[in-house]
């Protein structure tokens, strides 16, 4: 599975990368904000995206909309924090395939990623 990690926090990108390192995923690229995510998506065409919501330039939800316009088959997992219920709802309405709530541990993340394979 080819994965793109989108998060404006470099820590989160490192964290997600390390959590899935042992599994059979290939992180093809990382993006630092929504616009970057859309651009890199066009370039690298990952199968799955983990998408932070609160980001500069383009929010995770805006980026999600843009990306889903380009490809409806790409799986997008929203990475959110407590208190963002409304935003996730909006994301799901706009085609987010699943979401995960910070803080999470590797088993949760892997479970969500695995479910994207089907």
């Amino acid at each position, binding site marked *: 599975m080819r994965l793109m990690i989108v998060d404006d*926090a*470099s*820590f989160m990108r490192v964290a997600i990368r390390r959590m899935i390192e042992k599994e059979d995923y290939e992180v093809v690229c990382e993006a630092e904000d929504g616009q970057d995510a859309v651009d890199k998506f*066009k370039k690298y065409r990952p199968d799955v995206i983990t998408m932070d919501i609160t980001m500069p330039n383009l929010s995770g939800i805006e980026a999600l909309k843009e990306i889903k316009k380009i490809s409806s088959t790409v799986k997008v997992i929203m990475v959110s924090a407590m208190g963002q219920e409304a935003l*996730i709802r909006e994301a799901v309405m706009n085609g987010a395939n699943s979401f995960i709530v*910070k803080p999470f*541990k590797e088993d949760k993340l892997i479970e*969500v990623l695995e479910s994207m394979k089907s």
Partner: protein
Amino acid sequence: MENSYIDEPMLEAYVYETSQIIETLEQLMIQSEKVGTFSEEAMNEIFRFMHTIKGSSAMMMFNEISTLAHKIEDIFYVIRENKTIEYDFATLVDCILESVDYYKIEMIKIRNGERPDGDTASLTDKVNDYLVKLKKDNGLDKSKKEDKEKPKADQKYYISPNRKEDQAKYYKVKITFKKNCEMENIRAYTVIHNIVDLVEEVLYKPSDIIDNDQSVDEIRSNGFHMAIRSTAHEADIQKYLDSTIFLEKLDFEETNQEWFKEFEVIYQDQEISDEIKIPETSKKYVEIQKNKKEKEDSKQEVTATAAQSIISVNVDKLDKLMDMVGELVIAEAMVSQNPEVVRLEIESFDKASRQLHKISSELQDMVMAIRMVALSTTFMKMHRIVRDMTRKLSKDVVLDVYGEETEVDKNIIEKIADPLMHIIRNAIDHGIEDAEERKIAGKDPQGNLTLEAKNSGSDVLIIVKDDGKGLNKEKIYEKAYNLGLIYQSIEDMNDKDIYRLILHPGFSMKEQVTEFSGRGVGMDVVAKNIESIGGSVIVDSVLGKGTTIILKIPLTLAIIEGMNVKVGDSRFTIPIVSIKESFRPLNKEIIRDPEGREMIMVRGLCYPIIKLYEHYGLQTNVQDYEKGILIMVEEDDRSCCLMADELLGQQQVVVKSLPNYIKKYKQIKGLGGCTLLGDGSISLILDVGEFELSNVHEK
């Protein structure tokens, strides 16, 4: 650690990023405070910063840090969402700066491998009180309550537009989510949202999964119930439901129309107005087709690796690299200056060694450039100091910063932050008067403080200048005399020598010790710190007009241009920057004073002579001035002449620190370090500033 996934690189990434955010946040606060308000951009940024800290800290299980960030995030959420809101700007800035301080300390703890255990209770309370008050003052707390009191529907339904009455089957579904998967209501919503393609009609309970976060608890304890009417294959529906993420248990059974109706009837009179928006399937289809084409077009572009233009490198590696380049420079000298080869005078060898020298010095420049960091971050920190100080002391001071883009070596930057902070504190505390005093003195009531950095040869000058009351020469002299620091009469000393006394250990001008400065361990520590990196401190002042303190700092510590000299069997290296000239004196030019000290007149100025063989107790045959050579050295306008046997030549040398044995136990004066020469022998690098220099110009 209790979390298997948290490891060193993650911790490093966390501390690095969080520290950076905190620093930027602090600057943002200071800038905003100057303007007196948060710009929309600043607000968004602060919100995002706190959001990031909240999320990252929660991931690291640093809950206190996360909670505090969450509260501040909430405050900014409220302010951002309500454009007309009125809020207490000053208190908010204070709260955030206090949090910044707290975070800084916690980051240090985490970096040192400790648990962040700072007590946030009072700080969190303070922030929380602010939030509560903010909401109350602006009437935002009530509206939320009203929402909650609204009668809530317990069940809701969704009816597909293309509903077919025939062949429909009915299913009863109960979904139980796994523990701790969080936001069960939204997960339930996801199930409903994505099932629409499969079903004709779906009812669910609890129904208020969208507006009411309390529904989470109900789903947790009772599960999520659905009644489905569908013409799709049973297996497909079950397969879809089975694929629900974080599914603990799925109860799925076919039921009859009666049961379905019952489920419907119970909630019949409930409002059904907030139906879920149905995606326009037809539009979606078109888009899919369109995008498929696009996708094929762009497929060729796909490359596997991400290109990055900036990488972060561990400083240890850079230090190591610098060391190795140092070794290389030595090795290069060993080869190209090898006495036996040089004697052969081979032209091709000379050419090759020149080429080697060119490359190795380019390499050295490059490594140096990599290690260079702009002073801007250090300078920015000073804004905060000025802010805190002026508030506490109720003085009005503006800090102007120039040349913050000036770069110095990474290792040096770390060592100048504290001294600089101290000088700035001193300037505001002791230097700049309060508004009343300034008015009387006919000055602008607002004090001015300038912080400037500039390059000057192989040094960087950092200049701190205030327009305060200046240093009182007589007072300093009197105090130093009473403390027994000096014995000369005031007429025998020039201004700079007197000002320099404030750098003396144990000297503090302020009678009263304040919170910020004046503990008597001030300027001498500054001087020590700066000297430890090979720099020096220059103090200048005009009484009533202000004080200027200049920190002279070398660009880099590691490699210097030096002149090698020979004394007996020993070799010394004198930094080229200190050398004014060298010459062979005539014996008749030497003057002796009644105490036997020797001096020489050069162009009408009298320089003391220090014989290196005598100073270091060495054996040499060259004791006659006319056979040896004098090297005139200068540091901060003070000079002397050093006597050596002969000059060996100019060379770049790599500074290695002296072993502790020499530095601590023997405490030999005048040595700045040591180095290896081309022929493999050890040379001691002289620290000219430590010799007994005299101020030849002003007498």
